[in-house]
């Protein structure tokens, strides 16, 4: 037997670890900031860069891709080398990966606050950054696959299965969801419109949760939990079953984000049943985690690392049971668009991702620095502060979501809405928002305690950049898969494994996406629906820039309580020119799909300048800069021709007179405003936004929908 000497690269792990802590603090700080803005709207300090609409995507991107992303890479680079008995394939690719990813994060932070956004959740970054992400992701994947191929361990371990599935699926999701036509350096339109865009986006969005927040973390759990507990994995068979079932079923569940919407019923039903079928495979992961602790429970009491891991796995189990329940339409009818969903995702984010990351860092860092954790006491304190933070965060939000939803739906005995004023239902839950921010503050405090503890640990230790080790060289013998051993055979073929995993995740994707694109009956055409005018199109882009979609939906659901409040429920055919769709996922303010024509131009003018002048007590921040900033009209022709190439039936040659048409419409709106005493200027952005808002949802009138 030929024993080879080699070393593990800890340098790259260290870099990703520090980045994890740094971006974790940044991302959570932004989260805390916008949690405060929800009841103190002045906290944007009158700056357009720091409104809720722009900071919310910054928060989600920072915690998902910067905090969790770097934690994944740190964990993968550490564990992959060890379960493969091989140094990473290339130190250079690792460095490129690290610095490329940090650069993406910095660009993301800058462009998002500047207002460059596609508005598609967790995919807000504009096309040049999308390309960077694809390149860096492939660098990571190549480096990982190459390491697996040159491993010294015959079989690939279950953690690595999850890493492979993560790599291939995220690549597919990111590329398909980001197909867009550029109309400028930092502006693009997605090729999909309306219902199709919504379906693609939530196929992506849901599986970003599945394949960025779940599968890589299951991989990390399979390495760090048995290491920390020093116990064998409970069941190898369960690993196989729940791995394949999970990746096959997860990809189908996206439509549960669109229940009771304009999405066709068949797709909604698929979303529901595949979510229900996900309970068992998800719990398979939790089981293998918790049952691996069998015989080690007594140690959980004194070991903060195990404590973090137990709560993480338990949170995972709770969130993956709650998720399917929320996919049942009767419960979804109540919870969708409310704070319940925010509570639900934070059980997953703070509990599962956060706590598993903390456990991993506390375990891994002292080993890389050849020392012991500086203070177990502080780690314990962190655990309790964090747990209390999660509880204080989630419970008020569950309560808030439920309260508000029931207020939306309440009728008086005489059949009128009990709370016709939306604002009243918002003000009702402000105390819950205050409690939630306290919960968030506690969790954030815990993060600082950890940072200090890790800093001290690093200080007292000495870093092992290259950890020397040895292992026998791998001699591959060609074998035929034996009966009952097929999976074991497959574990020797990482590339075949990756290809099969890709096939498995493509099945659900194709079955759901393709019919929605090809079968016309899925989106009944409405002849009265016309493309946006040039001014309205520009207004829509301002709506996108300001992140209005963060708080306002454009989807009146087919319920009496919604049609009474907003107007006729939304039809699929109304969105055919919406690149991108703007249905939203949370109503902090009212739905806007039928806002057109409801208020006067002047109302909108004054409301945007200062919302509280029109609705006293409103929690919306003022947007005075819209009244002073000039509308960028020069981009209009390019936008028109991009839209036409996507199938929007603009007249040939509209590019040539679009700017003229735009100013005519702007003049008209400005004249009306001036007549009513507002100091309006037709060249300002506010005019375009008003034009768009007044157009919204007016193309169809009730009982006047013709189906062709």
């Amino acid at each position: 037997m030929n024993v080879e000497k080699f070393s593990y690269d800890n340098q790259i792990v260290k870099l990703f670890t520090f980045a994890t802590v740094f971006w974790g603090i940044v991302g959570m700080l932004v989260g805390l900031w916008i949690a405060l803005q929800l009841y103190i709207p002045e906290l944007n300090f009158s700056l357009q860069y720091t409104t809720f609409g722009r900071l919310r995507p910054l928060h989600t991107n920072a915690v998902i891709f910067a905090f969790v992303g770097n934690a994944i890479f740190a964990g993968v680079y550490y564990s992959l080398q060890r379960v493969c008995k091989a140094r990473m394939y290339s130190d250079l690719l690792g460095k490129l990966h690290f610095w490329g990813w940090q650069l993406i994060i910095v660009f993301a932070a800058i462009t998002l606050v500047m207002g460059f956004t596609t508005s598609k959740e967790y995919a807000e970054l504009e096309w040049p950054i999308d390309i960077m992400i694809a390149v860096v992701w492939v660098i990571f994947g190549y480096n990982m696959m190459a390491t697996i191929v040159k491993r010294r361990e015959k079989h690939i371990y279950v953690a690595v299965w999850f890493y492979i599935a993560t790599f291939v699926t995220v690549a597919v999701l990111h590329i398909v969801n980001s197909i867009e036509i550029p109309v400028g350096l930092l502006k693009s339109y997605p090729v999909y419109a309306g219902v199709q865009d919504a379906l693609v986006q939530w196929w992506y969005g849901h599986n970003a949760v599945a394949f960025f927040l779940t599968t890589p973390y299951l991989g990390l759990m399979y390495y760090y939990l048995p290491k920390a507990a020093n116990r064998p994995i409970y069941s190898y068979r369960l690993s196989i079953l729940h791995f394949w079932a999970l990746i096959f079923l997860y990809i189908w569940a996206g439509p549960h984000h669109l229940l009771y919407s304009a999405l066709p019923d068949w797709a909604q039903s698929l979303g529901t049943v595949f979510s229900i079928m996900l309970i068992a495979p998800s719990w398979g992961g939790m089981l293998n985690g918790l049952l691996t602790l069998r015989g080690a429970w007594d140690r959980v009491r004194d070991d903060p690392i195990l404590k973090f891991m137990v709560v993480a796995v338990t949170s995972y189990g709770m969130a993956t049971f709650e998720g399917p329940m929320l996919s049942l339409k009767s419960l979804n009818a109540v919870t969708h668009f409310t704070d319940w969903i925010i509570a639900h995702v934070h059980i997953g984010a703070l509990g599962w991702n956060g706590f598993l990351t903390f456990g991993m860092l506390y375990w891994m860092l002292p080993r890389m620095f050849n020392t012991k954790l500086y203070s177990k006491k502080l780690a314990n304190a962190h655990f309790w502060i964090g747990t209390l933070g999660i509880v204080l965060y989630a419970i008020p939000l569950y309560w808030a979501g439920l309260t508000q939803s029931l207020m939306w739906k309440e009728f008086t005995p005489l059949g009128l809405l009990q709370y016709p004023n939306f604002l009243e239902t918002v003000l009702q839950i402000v105390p819950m928002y205050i409690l939630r921010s306290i919960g968030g503050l506690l969790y954030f405090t815990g993060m600082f305690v950890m940072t200090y503890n890790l800093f001290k640990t690093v200080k007292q230790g000495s870093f092992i950049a290259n950890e020397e080790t040895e292992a026998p060289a791998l001699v591959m013998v060609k074998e035929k898969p034996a009966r009952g051993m097929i999976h074991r055979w497959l574990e020797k073929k990482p590339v075949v494994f990756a290809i099969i995993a890709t096939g498995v995740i493509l099945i659900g994707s194709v079955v759901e996406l393709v019919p929605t694109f090809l079968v016309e009956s899925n989106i009944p055409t409405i002849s009265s629906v016309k493309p946006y005018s040039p001014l309205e199109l520009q207004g829509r882009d301002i709506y996108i820039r300001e992140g209005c979609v963060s708080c306002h939906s454009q989807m009146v659901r087919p319920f009496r309580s919604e049609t009474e409040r907003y107007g006729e429920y939304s039809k699929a055919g109304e969105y055919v020119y919406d690149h991108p769709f703007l249905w939203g996922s949370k109503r902090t303010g009212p739905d806007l799909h039928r806002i057109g024509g409801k208020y006067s131009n002047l109302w909108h003018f004054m409301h945007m300048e200062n919302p509280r002048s029109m609705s006293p007590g409103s929690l919306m921040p003022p947007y005075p800069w819209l009244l002073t900033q000039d509308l960028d009209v020069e981009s209009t022709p390019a936008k028109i021709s991009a839209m036409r190439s996507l199938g929007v039936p603009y007249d040939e040659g509209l590019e040539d007179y679009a700017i003229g048409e735009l100013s005519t419409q702007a003049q008209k709106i400005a004249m009306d405003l001036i007549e009513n005493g507002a100091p309006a200027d037709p060249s300002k952005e506010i005019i375009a936004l008003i034009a768009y808002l007044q157009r919204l949802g007016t193309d169809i009138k009730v009982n006047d929908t013709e189906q062709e």
Partner: protein
Amino acid sequence: MKSNKLLNILFSILFLFSFTSPLFAETGEGTNMETVLKVMVAITAFTIAFLMWLVLVYAEKNDAQGELLLGPFKSVFKWITKSTPISQEHEILMDHDYDGIKELDNKIPPWFNFLFYGTILFSIIYLVNYHVIGSGNIQEEEYLAEMQAAKEQQQLLARSGALLDEESVTRVSDPSALSNGETIYLKHCAACHAADGGGLVGPNLTDEYWVHGGGIKNVFKVIKYGVPQKGMISWQSQLSPTEMQEVGSYILTMEGTTPAAPKDPEGELWTASDEEADGAAVNPAMKDKGVGPITEVTLGEIDPQIAAKGKDIFELKCSACHKMDKRFIGPALRGITERRSPEWIMNMILVPDRMVQENKAARELLMEYISPMANQNLSQEETRAILEYFRTETNQE
């Protein structure tokens, strides 16, 4: 082996029934706080109970001899988990070793399989139910059914007269209603007022004298609330508003008839003009004073000075949303003093939030205009000035 499969299926079906019907796709409309709370508590309780069960069932304790202690349900637990005890774990330890991590080959727990098969079965039934047996047009049908139910509810309310009260009630004269009224009268009222209305314990109903005022509104009020101190009971728990309207109208038809043994007149003489003055001919909205600090306003001659002051305040505080002749963010205001009582107008300016909460007319306006009226924090004196200004605008037309 075969019987095992059968058991699996049976268990799956049981699991299925445990969370099907009430959670199926029916809409959440009409779901009240209680149901949702129950569901939420159930979910949380279930998850916590499940996790505790997991720990309990899989936790292992040995006695002094190293024998496994599982308690009274030993065989059930064994059968449902198929878990190999830690003491025998070496038998199922695989030869896998990844950086020191070993793997056991425990069987997949049967309860896990039940759960998995159960959800698959649920999904098949769900899809067949809605998309093969059903039309597949789920949410539109649900919506139409919901709207239909609301409409029927509304019609039922109108028919039962739930929308009728002493303010809105009118005298009915169609024969079927009066004959219903007569039946009710004979059944419930004749004992005290005599079958022909001549009065026994209660007063004579055929003359023109009324103790608590005549006319349908007063009669309705007396029937509804009763006059306990005089022995007239309240009927609102026994008669629907429509029935009270019918019997009240019937009673009024008895006026001028000659009963067999008439009691002497009691109360005041009630004439038709009184009834008119009571508001029958006046726009009922003018009687609605709304809710708020203003309960009584006396209007004199228009004071031009106060009106001019009101105009200034109006232009400063109100004109962003209100025009005199044009519907704007809020309604047009010319002629408002002929459509609403002065008290209502002032209350609406002073406490718009409360008005929208408690006053029907204000609520209906909000439904129509959507934009809530802002409270401008005006004093009563300023509000009175605006009212004066409104009066001048009304007169100009």
